[in-house]
């Protein structure tokens, strides 16, 4: 690799168990080092600042997803056939097969149902008063997403674990990723059975896929990967955002008061939660042709790590980035990625998180911490693992 010695080097492993629990000090040091930083531990150029992350995400012809977005070659090989790992027309075709169901346009019909479910979840939590915020946060995605994808009732108890494992495997090949392999394979195996035995719920996205395959628009063999594509990323991520919202409003009572006084702030509050505690740490891109980012040469065939979570805390892009403030304009945050590969489920994620906040604002006077929160270990997903809270009714 040419001129690597000129690129600043960051030696600590940003995927060590400790760094996974508290990544932000690492990101801050990397941003200070420069726009492109070499990580010898993972043999990859990392982009810790906002401008370069956004530029690389927009240049999807140079920085491609088709050879995988993981940090290890095995996962990149295994995840072939998913929308996440495709480019150009192939990506557009795959995305169009299911993403049309996830656009805000298509989701309008769902809004009342989701609002009602959110209200029931908050009522049930208020009845218990002291709750684990992570369980409260899991309830809405778990009641909305599997029905939408058409996953049969059996096997649902495994979905959160399988989904988390599917993400873990996309990290570097560390102990965390290796331990996740059996659960990741469990989901793949189940998806194959579901597709083969046509166990999907009628009228669901999975049903759409099988019909498209029947019509010759795609191969039947492509269906399981595409189902996982829309199921695995829709649970842990939204859970992360809702749990972080609960945590942030519990620890920032002034911000909670602002939200109570003006629920019109809810859509932007969701953007700010995703900026401040980005559910996805980072994905990689393969450099398809010799390229340059901020003066650093990136040779064709190498990989570059797009650190969404760091970009969202970059002081070059955000005033006072380590302050949680729902009044700031957080719409351009990169937590959902950006551009062609931007999260296909972000409309659904916004819908669910906004619905939870609307239900909370209407029913809860105060959210109070009831014990120390714990963060979960996952190579890709940044989320709380336990969040003791007391909910005080309005």
């Amino acid at each position: 690799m040419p001129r690597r010695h000129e690129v600043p080097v960051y030696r600590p492993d940003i995927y060590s168990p400790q760094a996974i629990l508290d990544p932000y000090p690492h990101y801050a040091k990397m941003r200070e080092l420069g726009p492109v930083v070499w990580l010898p531990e993972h043999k990859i150029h990392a982009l810790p600042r906002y401008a370069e992350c956004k530029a690389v995400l927009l240049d999807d012809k140079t920085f491609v997803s088709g050879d995988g977005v993981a940090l290890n070659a095995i996962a990149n090989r295994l995840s072939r056939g998913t929308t996440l790992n495709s480019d150009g027309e192939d990506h557009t075709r795959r995305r169009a097969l299911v993403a049309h169901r996830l656009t805000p346009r298509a989701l309008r019909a769902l809004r009342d149902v989701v609002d009602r479910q959110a209200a029931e979840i908050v009522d049930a939590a208020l009845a218990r008063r002291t709750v684990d915020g992570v369980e409260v946060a899991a309830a809405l995605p778990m009641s909305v997403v599997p029905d939408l994808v058409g996953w049969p009732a059996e096997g649902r108890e495994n979905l959160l674990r399988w989904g988390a494992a599917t993400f873990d495997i996309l990290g570097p090949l560390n102990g965390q990723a290796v331990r996740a392999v059996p659960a990741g394979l469990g989901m793949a195996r189940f998806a194959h059975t579901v597709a083969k035995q046509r166990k999907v719920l009628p009228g669901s996205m999975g049903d759409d896929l099988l019909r498209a395959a029947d019509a010759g628009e795609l191969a039947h063999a492509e269906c399981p990967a595409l189902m996982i594509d829309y199921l695995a990323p829709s649970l842990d991520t939204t859970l992360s955002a809702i749990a972080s919202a609960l945590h942030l409003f519990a620890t920032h009572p002034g911000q909670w008061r602002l939200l109570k006084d003006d629920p019109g702030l809810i859509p932007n509050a969701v953007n700010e939660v995703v900026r401040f505690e980005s559910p996805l740490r980072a994905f990689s891109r393969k450099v398809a042709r010799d390229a340059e980012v901020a003066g650093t040469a990136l040779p064709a065939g190498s990989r570059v790590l797009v650190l969404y979570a760091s970009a969202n805390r970059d002081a070059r892009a955000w005033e006072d980035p380590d302050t949680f403030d729902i009044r700031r304009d957080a719409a351009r945050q990169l937590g959902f990625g950006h551009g062609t590969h931007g999260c296909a489920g972000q409309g659904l994620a916004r819908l669910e998180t906004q619905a939870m906040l609307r239900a909370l604002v209407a029913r809860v006077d105060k959210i109070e911490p009831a014990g120390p929160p714990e963060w979960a270990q996952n190579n890709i997903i940044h989320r709380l693992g336990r969040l003791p809270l007391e909910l005080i009714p309005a």
Partner: protein
Amino acid sequence: MKISADHDRCEGHGLCTEQAPAIFELDDDAELVHRFEGTDIPPEQLAAARAAVTSCPVAALRELP
């Protein structure tokens, strides 16, 4: 300054309508309405227009010279 909108790429997330309600809106079918398609953005709307471009999650909006 003009802004082009790629209507095929637009998924109707509506972030532009929050940034620049005088320029963009979603109609009843959640299709994007761009009030200044092909014409210059009024000077007083430039800042809002640029914020709309940077906030579009699927990069369907582009600033043209």
